[in-house]
């Protein structure tokens, strides 16, 4: 009884749109008539997804016009969080917000206004452009937990960070803390395809994931022990002579120092720290170093280690350099920024932010790598080498937990306003109780959103934002790739939704930035960005219709021509850039933030090892819990526990259990599985319950099952390089929820 719509009927236009529910941005064909999307399909001719769409991609039409969407600008009436709203015109909202921000700037300085960004749903360059001209250095982002520290550490060492894998010619792929089987499905398909042609796949993950199940080698390491493993691999590769001697001699600096430094980090040393055997460590290091060329794919896990994150990224980067797996066919490619189009960074107007304001960026005193001191230095080197800098948005951020802390304590100075766009901080940032306290306390909050999230519910204004199918998109790995994949909007935004670009532009126009916003629409801005490609399209839409993609010709071995983008022009195994910033130039060992060796007392009370970053199909971060066509797949939050552990604790499958760390407790439902080690607990992230009351004090149950209640943002738990906080390798205890305490957890 298919209610299939006749897609041959007259007047139907096919728009080359894309999915917007994760960063893959799979190509979508949207069948549009009279400004309405009748149907969507994966675009078979899109190079990554080839017609495929995951669960989320398939519910695009449910998302587009879901009854719970916020469709009109809302202004709070009544108390903060009371859930009483008045619908007002956009112009009124923007006038009032602009007036309020101006008043805050006059009284407290521009830095008293901070913005929180989300996960690339937005034109973040526009936000940065606004903030630079407004004069505040306090943009921040979830990016600390996702790739950005890696990008900056690796750029310090060899002048760019590979995000582009030349998998076709590769013989070995290391998936380090990554599960493309649940998170990047187009990629998973290509990996599987290549495995049939001989590609070896090593999965490093405490969980037996969809991807681990298909790997040639699975290394189930202790959560948070990645640094020990990476150092031991470096040790094996150097001391067993597996490195690429020619590349190292010719193109690297500091090999002698490194070799001496890692002598101590033998597989025997790493075994008890990683819970692997020395043989497993040796065998896997051999597999990577001798199956050449090879790749190490970035995975989010290392970015979420906290204290040991920066050193782990450093050690992992050294593996590529030692094996010569950089910029040669089949290896990790250093593409550099796009030379052919206007990059995100060039759109950001970073020069407009005065030095004195840059100096005020919160967190820049302690975490130098992803703030102006480190970014400024690395951007300068990149400009010298590539002619262009990496994007400042994402790479140069105020330290989020410190901003929340500043709201609460007024230290180092007062933060009065928070503009939130495409994120739900209470569910996505660390130590949720503290984050929530900050959201409750901040004087003025505006949230640009699709839904009434717990964060939106605490705002003064909630503004309706255009989503997938309603906005054009350029996909280019955050401005760090040299290619572009372009998509057009299927329809103009429904109801009174607007692009976030228009939000920042409208605000800018009201604050004396008129000259800086010549592009009335997002398409105008995008057209400006792609014009230098030289295709001669009259408009952005025409470009998408006719060309859609731009893949510049690949040049391998660029370093032979231009060297590496470091002070010495070589790969700096011993990093002068890190050293200049006051960090160890070689990776030094640190244990997981909480562990039984360093804190035996703590381990007595909290004997289990917790990892919290588990994303799961069909959700993405803290999204989509409203959509029943997805929720039926996972109605309630799940925590994975080994059956042996569960038996000891008297826990049965599907029991509600408390998971508790020093910072608090949450409840999820026990999922007994052999897929995790007996001492390991794996929680799902993101959970809240949009079906509950969204007003105070319930706020969608945003603390009840939210794994970020358990994570830590304490300064001593954060990575000293980047400030990334601790989501993995924590200590916890688990016990059954009994009737009496089932309700706690507000």
């Amino acid at each position, binding site marked *: 009884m298919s209610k299939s719509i006749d897609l041959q009927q007259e007047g139907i236009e096919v728009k080359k749109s894309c999915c917007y529910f994760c960063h893959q941005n799979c190509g979508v064909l949207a069948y549009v008539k009279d400004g309405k999307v009748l149907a969507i399909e994966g675009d078979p001719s899109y190079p990554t997804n080839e017609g495929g769409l*995951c669960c989320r991609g*398939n519910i695009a039409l449910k998302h587009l016009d879901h009854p719970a969407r916020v469709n009109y600008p809302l202004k709070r009436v009544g108390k903060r969080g009371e859930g009483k709203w008045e619908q007002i015109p956009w112009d009124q909202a923007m006038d009032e917000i602009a007036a309020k921000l101006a008043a805050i700037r006059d009284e407290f300085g521009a830095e008293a206004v901070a913005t929180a960004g989300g996960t690339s749903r937005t034109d973040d360059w526009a936000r940065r452009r606004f903030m630079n001209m407004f004069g505040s250095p306090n943009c921040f982002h979830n990016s600390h937990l996702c790739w950005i520290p890696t990008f900056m550490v690796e750029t310090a060492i060899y002048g760019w960070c590979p995000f582009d894998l030349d998998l076709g010619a590769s013989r070995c792929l290391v998936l380090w803390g990554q599960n493309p089987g649940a998170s990047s499905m*187009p990629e998973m398909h290509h990996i599987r395809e290549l495995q049939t042609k001989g590609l070896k796949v090593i999965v490093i993950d405490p969980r037996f994931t969809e991807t681990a199940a298909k790997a040639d080698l699975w290394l189930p390491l202790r959560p948070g022990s990645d640094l020990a493993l990476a150092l031991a691999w470096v040790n094996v590769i150097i001391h067993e002579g597996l490195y690429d001697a020619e590349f190292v001699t010719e193109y690297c600096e500091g090999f002698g120092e490194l070799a001496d430094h890692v002598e101590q980090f033998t597989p025997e040393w790493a075994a008890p720290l990683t819970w692997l055997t020395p043989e497993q460590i040796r065998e896997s290091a051999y597999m990577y170093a001798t199956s050449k060329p090879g790749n190490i794919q970035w995975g989010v896990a290392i970015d979420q280690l906290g204290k040991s994150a920066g050193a782990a990224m450093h050690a992992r980067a050294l593996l590529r350099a030692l094996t010569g797996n950089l910029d040669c066919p089949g290896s990790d490619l250093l593409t550099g920024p796009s030379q052919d189009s206007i990059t995100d960074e060039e759109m950001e107007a970073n020069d407009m932010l005065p030095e004195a304001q840059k100096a005020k960026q919160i967190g820049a005193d302690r975490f130098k790598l992803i703030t102006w001191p480190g970014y400024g230095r690395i951007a300068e080197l990149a400009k010298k080498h590539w002619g262009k800098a990496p994007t400042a948005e994402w790479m140069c951020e105020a330290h989020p937990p410190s901003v929340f802390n500043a709201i609460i304590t007024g230290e180092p100075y007062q933060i009065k306003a928070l503009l939130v766009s495409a994120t739900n901080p209470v569910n996505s940032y660390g130590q949720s109780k503290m984050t929530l306290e900050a959201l409750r306390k901040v004087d003025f909050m505006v949230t640009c959103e699709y839904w009434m999230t717990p964060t939106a519910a605490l705002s003064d204004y909630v503004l309706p934002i255009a989503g997938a199918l309603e906005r054009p998109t350029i996909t280019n790995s955050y401005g760090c790739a040299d290619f572009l994949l372009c998509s057009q909007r299927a329809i103009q935004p429904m109801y009174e939704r607007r692009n976030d670009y228009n939000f920042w532009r409208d605000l800018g126009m009201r604050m004396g930035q008129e000259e800086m916003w010549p592009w009335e629409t997002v398409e105008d801005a995008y057209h400006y960005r792609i014009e230098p490609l030289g295709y001669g399209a009259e408009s952005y839409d025409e470009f998408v219709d006719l060309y859609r993609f731009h893949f510049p010709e690949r040049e391998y071995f660029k370093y032979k021509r231009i060297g590496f983008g470091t002070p010495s022009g070589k790969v700096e195994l011993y990093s002068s850039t890190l050293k200049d910033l006051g960090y160890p130039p070689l990776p030094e060992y640190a244990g997981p933030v909480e562990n039984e060796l360093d804190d035996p007392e703590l381990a007595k009370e909290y004997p289990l090892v917790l990892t919290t970053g588990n994303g799961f199909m069909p959700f993405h971060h803290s999204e989509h819990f409203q959509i029943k066509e997805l929720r039926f797949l996972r109605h309630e939050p799940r925590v994975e526990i080994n059956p042996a552990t569960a038996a000891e604790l008297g826990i049965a499958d599907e029991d509600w259990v408390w998971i508790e760390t020093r910072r608090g407790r949450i409840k999820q439902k026990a999922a007994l599985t052999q897929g995790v080690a007996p001492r390991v607990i794996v929680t799902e992230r993101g959970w809240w319950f949009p079906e509950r009351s969204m007003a105070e004090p319930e706020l969608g149950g945003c603390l009840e099952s939210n794994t970020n209640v358990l994570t830590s943002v304490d300064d001593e738990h954060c990575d000293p390089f980047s400030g990334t906080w601790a989501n993995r390798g924590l200590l916890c205890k688990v016990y059954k929820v009994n009737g009496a305490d089932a309700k706690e957890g507000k």
Partner: protein
Amino acid sequence: MARYAMVFDIRRCIGCHSCTVACRTKNELPMDMIYNPVTTVGPTGVYPNLSMVHLPLICMHCDNPPCVDACPTGASQRRDDGIVFVEDKKCVGCLACVMACPYGARVKNHESGAVQKCDFCKDRVDEGKLPYCVLTCHQKARVFGDLDDETSEVYKLVNGERTVRLLAELGTEPYAFYIYG
């Protein structure tokens, strides 16, 4: 005449359920109906020696469909190209076919009263398109095509790989084939 078949490459399936969601969305099925569930078996074994497989299910489009034989009204039919479908106007919801199907492939739609099931997206197939679950599968774990066409991928897989049919011993001759690897 074509002879349609679907091959499931279990080595590729990752249990992502996008086929399930896509099918339900495309066919506007109520929340309590699914044409094509995916079951996950595992992880089996004892940590860390484990394995895990995912098994997508659909109507098997049997060559010998007991559901069609059982149907008193002629609502359940089999086309010459092998697609088994229900003509919902003729269906009285007696559930005889539901009892007869050994694969649990049929469900009554409580909104319409008719029994429904996967029909290989026959309207799409008639337009030369792929069934929607096949198009949407990122992993290309589902392959659809004409088994009578020697150049088709299903032909090559069914004749070149070790495939199995579920409950083959019942003699229903399903046109869904599974590659275990």
